[in-house]
């Protein structure tokens, strides 16, 4: 579903991602952990091309994102193609990034109407379905400012789901939430995972990683240092850096 090959990304002199290789199979839930500044979020943002990699390729379902081959050479792909691929990748942000001038339902139907040109009635029907799915059927007329952080993040998840994406990326979805609101967001994500959604999740919620992840990846200083099943990583980490990180966080 996702294939990342030799990905490198620098911000100025700071080399954020170093030769990242990653393969995510359909239906797999991959959780990325690691200290802040290790490149987890940047990796996620390179997958849907919000950041342009300096080198290396990212394939979504076999299609390269951001570049295309012309006469054996790789050139920048058209914006139209990049947008088309992005519309198949759902993204949930740490700070929700809901559209404040639209109601909850307005947020959820925006993508289908504007990007997919879906008729409004159909989009509303679909939007209500996804709001119900995240447990917010009664909040469709509320503006984001009238919702709690946990509710806002759930609307954001519904907004991403309404595009019926092939995979979902979560960038620290619970980091900006009050502790008592974390559970409601995680339980929505858990349901999604159970339904077989392909997910890549950057998080500090180790409990979630343990319970839901098929695979846990530990990143440090721009590299994938260790990966394995949750049991392997949490109970029997091999790398010293992984051990040190886990001993602090668990």
């Amino acid at each position: 579903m996702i294939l990342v090959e030799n990905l490198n990304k620098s911000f100025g002199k700071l080399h954020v991602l170093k030769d990242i290789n990653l393969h995510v199979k359909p239906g797999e839930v991959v959780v990325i952990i690691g200290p802040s500044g290790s490149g987890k979020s940047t990796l996620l943002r390179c997958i849907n091309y919000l950041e342009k990699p300096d080198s290396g390729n990212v394939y979504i379902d076999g299609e390269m994102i951001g570049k295309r081959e012309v006469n054996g050479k790789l050139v920048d792909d058209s914006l139209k193609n990049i947008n088309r691929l992005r519309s198949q990748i759902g993204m949930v942000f740490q700070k929700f990034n809901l559209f404040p001038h639209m109601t909850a339902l307005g947020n959820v139907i925006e993508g289908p109407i504007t990007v997919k040109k879906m008729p409004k009635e159909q989009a509303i029907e679909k939007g209500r379905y996804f709001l119900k799915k995240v447990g917010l059927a009664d909040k469709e007329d509320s503006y984001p400012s009238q919702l709690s952080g946990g509710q806002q993040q759930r609307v954001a998840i519904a907004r991403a789901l309404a595009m019926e994406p092939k995979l979902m990326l979560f960038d620290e979805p619970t980091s900006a939430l009050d502790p008592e609101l974390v559970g409601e967001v995680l339980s929505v994500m858990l349901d999604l995972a159970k339904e077989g959604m392909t997910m890549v999740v950057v998080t500090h919620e180790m409990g979630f990683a343990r319970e839901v992840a098929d695979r846990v990846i530990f990143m440090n200083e721009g590299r994938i240092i260790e990966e394995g099943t949750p049991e392997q990583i949490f109970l029997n980490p091999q790398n010293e850096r992984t051990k040190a990180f886990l001993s602090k966080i668990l």
Partner: protein
Amino acid sequence: MVGFFSFLVKYLPVLLEGTIMTLQLTVLSITFGTIIGLFVALAKISKSKFLSIPASLYTWVIRGVPLLVQLFFLYFGLPQVGIELSPFSAAVIGLSVCSGAYIAEIIRAGIQSIDKGQLEAAYSLGMSYAQAMRRIIIPQAYRRLIPPMGNEFISMLKNSSLVTTIAMVELMRTATHISSSTFRPLESFVAAGLLYLVLTTIFVLIFGRLERRLTVYE
């Protein structure tokens, strides 16, 4: 005081004609200025140098040269190269081009004040830059534009008095005519000043209302 009132009653009709012209000039210039300003603002924040450099040049020159000089250039300067403009066209063009530069800056600041995450969220749904601007960024920037646009409107209304120097008959010119035919400059210009004050007050109230109405979601 009684003298002033009888003066006002006598000359109000002709002063009001001038006022209506002033109002027309202001509304036309702000309308064209907003259209110019929107495109120039988008050009200025664009990554393409072909767009951003001319746009920056435009705001730099127009904001850096006095409006009076620009009006004289249009009305007295251009005929020398065969372009003759009526006072009305010269006034509308001059005021529109001028307000366009200021409005461009207002819109640019408004757009750039929107959190970067909004654009990213729009992109992540698969929107193009144009769709993101139209559906997500500009509707949010719009509300933040109301207070500075109100200011711009008022200063344009007052700036429009400068076109009196290029033979345009509006409120200021009318007051000057009355003053020189009656030899009562004090009353003439106090009357004109009051009419400007009435207009600006009306706009302050209108923009205040707009601002309150658009704060629903925050």
